[in-house]
Every structure is written in structure tokens, then in C-alpha cells.
């Protein structure tokens, strides 16, 4: 199934005003998403893609689906309305780390809690890129950004733990360095009935790397390679060895009642009243 894909088929032919910097991870993530959609043979007409604000937010404009570029942090709330009104359709959310864990944190955790059948892809580049490089809830300690000029002294969210704690029923994380595995996770997320969260560890050399001695895309990708550890290997590592590492893999895959399913079953039971 992994054969030839005409990516142009999934890209809008009449809008291509690309806002991303050369070397950005967003393109590789989009490619993995297209592969997943292609391999699952999902019709473009049966899928809505909703995004927030920021670099990741621009994804919805470039791709030829039913797309909604919403407000900062709120794509999950819009997507919840779409999914509840059209429960038999695929609804995918793209958001960044700032989008999903800062301003949109409330919507993110409640979608997880409801276990509504959304596929939420969180592109975590550890920084607010679009606004020029301010620190986000996932910027590592010590990193310099435009609002942590002396190094970051704030604490971080672990997006995977946040999603698990909030009740998401499929949770996985992979980096842009492993597009084949990433494609597999996105496919599973799309097929999973319930709230799926896929965190993608991505690179921003312009607004994060550049200020932290990683000026090229490669330097940031090398850093990602160094600090990500597959779950299988992490299981054999001590707590000290895991300090500062980001574990990748599939963390949760369980079945729980899905929100729209429960709601429409209720409607069915009230018929004729």
C-alpha cells in the first residue's frame, strides 16, 4: 500500500501561498498524513480538517478537504460541533503546542474526557513559531526564546501524559524523523473510534534552534534524535537516564464509550416520545 501517491491530489491547486520556512517539519508531517489518508482510502469529501492559529494552523488552507482555519487554541471546539452534527464523518484537528496546550488546553482535555471521535494531531515544535519565537508550555528548561532571554525557568507539559490523564483512548507520539512510524500512528488514530491524540515532535530551527546553537534544520533534527527514545528502549532505562528525554511510541489504545455514539443512542431510545 505504501506505493506511489499523487500528493497534488490532496493539495489545493488554487491556493499555495506557503507560509512555512524551508526546513520546517510541517511538510513531512503533512506527507505522513496524506499517506495515512491514501492508504486508508478515505474520500476527501468525507473528512473535515480543522486547524488553529500558528504555523500548524496554516495546514488547513493548503489541503483539499472540507477545511476550517479557526481561532487560536479552539479548533477542537469547532471540530466537536462538526463531529456531533456529522457523526459518520472523519474529523481531524491540527494544532501546535501553544495552540493545544496553552490557550486551547481546556478544549483539548475535554475532547479527551468526552472521548469524542476526533483525531487530534499536535505538532510540538517547542516554541511559538508564527509570532516570532516566544516560549511555549513545552519549551525545554534553559532554552532561550524571545520571552525567556536568560533561558527558560518555567515548567513543561508532557502532551502524552496530559492526553492520557484527560482520558484519550488512543495516544501516540513520534518525531518527524520517523515518517513511516508516524504514518502508522496517524492511520491507527484515524481508524480508532474515540478521541485519538498523536503528538509529533517537530523542528523549528528559525525560532527555536537559531537562539539555542542549532541554526540549521539538521542541527535541530539531530537534537530531536538525541532526546527522543522509543518506548521499548525507555522501558529498560533508569529514571536518571530518562531525564530530559522524550519517549516515543504508542501509549494507550483502549475502548471506551464514544461521545457521539452515546448521544445518538439516547436519541434513538427517545424516538416517538
Amino acid at each position: 500500500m505504501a506505493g506511489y501517491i499523487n500528493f497534488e491530489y490532496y493539495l489545493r491547486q488554487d491556493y499555495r501561498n506557503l507560509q512555512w520556512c524551508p526546513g520546517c517539519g510541517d511538510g513531512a508531517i503533512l506527507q505522513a498524513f496524506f499517506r495515512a489518508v491514501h492508504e486508508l482510502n478515505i474520500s476527501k469529501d468525507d473528512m473535515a480538517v480543522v486547524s488553529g492559529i500558528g504555523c500548524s494552523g496554516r495546514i488547513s488552507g493548503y489541503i483539499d478537504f472540507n477545511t476550517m482555519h479557526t481561532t487560536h487554541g479552539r479548533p477542537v471546539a469547532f471540530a466537536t460541533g462538526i463531529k456531533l452534527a456529522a457523526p459518520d464523518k472523519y474529523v481531524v484537528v491540527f494544532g501546535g503546542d501553544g495552540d493545544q496546550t496553552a490557550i486551547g488546553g481546556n478544549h483539548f482535555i475535554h475532547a479527551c474526557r468526552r472521548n469524542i471521535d476526533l483525531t487530534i494531531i499536535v505538532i510540538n515544535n517547542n516554541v511559538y513559531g508564527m509570532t516570532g519565537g516566544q516560549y511555549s508550555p513545552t519549551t525545554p528548561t534553559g532554552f532561550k526564546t524571545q520571552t525567556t532571554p536568560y533561558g527558560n525557568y518555567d515548567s513543561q507539559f508532557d502532551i502524552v501524559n496530559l492526553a492520557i490523564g484527560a482520558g484519550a483512548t488512543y495516544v501516540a507520539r513520534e518525531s518527524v524523523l520517523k515518517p513511516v512510524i508516524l504514518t502508522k500512528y496517524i492511520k491507527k488514530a484515524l481508524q480508532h473510534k474515540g478521541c485519538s491524540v498523536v503528538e509529533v515532535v517537530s523542528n523549528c530551527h528559525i525560532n527555536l534552534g537559531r537562539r539555542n546553537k542549532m541554526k540549521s534544520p539538521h542541527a535541530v533534527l539531530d537534537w530531536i534524535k538525541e532526546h527522543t527514545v522509543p518506548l521499548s528502549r525507555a522501558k529498560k532505562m533508569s529514571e536518571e537516564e530518562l531525564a530530559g528525554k522524550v519517549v516515543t511510541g504508542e501509549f494507550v489504545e483502549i475502548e471506551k464509550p464514544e461521545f457521539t455514539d452515546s448521544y445518538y443512542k439516547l436519541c434513538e431510545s427517545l424516538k416517538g416520545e
Partner: protein
Amino acid sequence: MSNRKGVYTGNELIALAAIDAGCRFYAGYPITPSSEIMEVMSKELPKVGGAFIQMEDEIASMAAAIGAAWTGVKAMTASSGPGISLKAEHIGYACITETPVVIVNIMRGGPSTGFPTAPSQSDVMQARWGTHGDHPTIAIVPGNAQEMYYETVRAFNLAEKFRTPVFILGDEILGHMNTMVELPDPSELDVVEREIFQPKDGEKYKPFDMSKGDVPPMGAFFRGYRFHLTGLNHNEYGYPTIEKDMIRQQQERMMKKVENHADEIVKNELFNMEDAEYVIFAYGSTGAAAKLASKVLREKGKKVGVFRPITIWPFPDKQLDEVIASGKYKGIMVAEANLGQIIYEVERVNKGRLPIKDLLKLDGTPVSPTDIVNRFEEVF
């Protein structure tokens, strides 16, 4: 045949009217004094196969309603002042994406948490300018139980017709007052159905088409064609644009689709105005009090009429101007349950022609007919 005579609160009437008008999606968050609207929706919508969801906050409620609207359903949310402040972000998104959606504000005291269980009319300017940026506003101010029902139906119709959010501004009194009402059979109602764009062979849907008059055709997701929506300034296809002519044209069309059609949206009640010498300008529950005050004042020999707007935005410029220009009246008294909001609109239209007096009251109690009678006798 209708067999729905009963005692209803204003909030219940709004919810029932919404369902009768074809609303099949509600997203909300609990807030006094509007929660009963959501409670009725949670009970009634599942019975008709519509969707109900209690969201995590007010911002999300507005977002979910907009998302649902673009799947082709009529959607609504309701709240009160503090909640509307939060929804403001997405009211702007609904304006720029030209999304039909109905927003109810059962007004209470403010600012901030204010007086949750008391009425006010302090949010009329918020309805006009609560979200940032230039945008059109349609807002209805029902003045009694019947209007809570019928004006809700009209709100849905206006939302469909003009592809824009429509406010219903009630207040705590109207929301909680019990009244005997006979509801009509829904089939007797004049309901504007959603017309969803269907492309002819190979035609590309333009959600912001400027060639189809002031209101572009409304599309929907999952209908075999695909399109884009964004809160950014956009071109006819909905794609972001920085082209100045396109931004100006789209922005102007968005404003004009309401301005140019004000006559189809504006609605007023002129009460006891035929032979009147003075005019009380009042809306909502204060408008109802003004009508009673007019009767009392007439018994006292004062010929007083009432100009009661039922649509407050767009403001009834033309209709009020006609009244003032007729030369029949000696003065206007504006009564409202706030410290002065709509009075400035009346002054703007008046252009200094008639003396304008005020009755502005904001203490957690409604403006009563007695308040109006006493103040009128004081000033005129």
C-alpha cells in the same frame, strides 16, 4: 392542530421556538439567568434527533455552534453578559465567515459577574461592538412572552437570510416571567429553510462569492465539494488574502448586507402614537413598562405614545427620523435599564431637533411603569 397552550417562561419559549424554527444543534454552558434555555434544549433536542452538547466553556459553545452550522444545520447558543464577553472571540469568527447562528443573551447586571439574578439592558452596545473589528450586527429585543417565541423564529430566519449571527437580547424579567401562551403549530410558522449550495457540473463553490448580491450562497461540508473557511481576511474562495482591493470589497459587502437591507430587518411597535405629543422610546421589558406608563399618563391628560424597537440593531434610523421629522411631537424620553446606551443612538438620529430626556435606571430592579410616569412628569 396545536394543543400547546400553557404557562411558559420566556426562556422556555425561546427554546421551544428555536426547535419549531428548525434548530437542530445547541451548544451551551450554564449561566444565570439563561440556563433554562439550555435545560429545555437538553430535554427536547434528542427527541427530534437534534444535537445537544454542554461544552467546557462559553468560548467552546460558540465554536461548536459555528462548526455545526457548516455541516448544514441551524444552530444556537445562549448565555448572559459574562458568557457573551467570552463568546465575543467567536462571534467575530461567525461574522467574518458569514455563519448563520443565533445567540441569545438573557441580560443581567454587569460589568463582570454583576448581579446574576437581576435584569438589566446593559449589553445592547456589547451586542453591537462586543467583538473586535468592523462587523455587521443584527439584534432583536423582544418585549413580551409572545415575542420571545415569535421573534426567536424571526431571528433564525434573519440568520439564514443574511448569513450572519443574530442576537436575541432578553433580560432576566422576560426570561423568567411566566405567561399563558398558546404556541402555534410549527407548520403554520413562516420559516426560512437552509438553502445549501449545490454546484452545477464542475462549478467551484465560492463561500464569499461577490457576484451573487450582498449575501453569498451558503455551502456545507460533506456535500461532494470542498472549500475553506478562515478567520483571516479572505478572497471569494475563502483563501487568506492580503490583496487590498479584495479585503476592502469583502469587508464592505459584509457590512452592506445588513445596512442595505435594514428595512427587511428593522421592526418597531408604535403604540398610542397617532395623537401623541410626547414619545417614550423604550425596548425590551422597559418597552412593555412604557406602554403601561403611556396609558396611565393619558388618564392624567398627557398625550404620550411609545416608540418600541423590536429590532435594536440595525438601529431604526429611518423610522425614528420619520417620527421626529413629522413635527407632531414636542419631546422624547428614552427609558432603559442601564446608565445610558441607546439614548446616544436616539440623539444621533434626532440631530438636536427635539428635547431628549432620560430615565436611566441600573439598580437590579426593572424599570417599572411608575418609574416612567414619575420621571415623565418630572421632565415634561
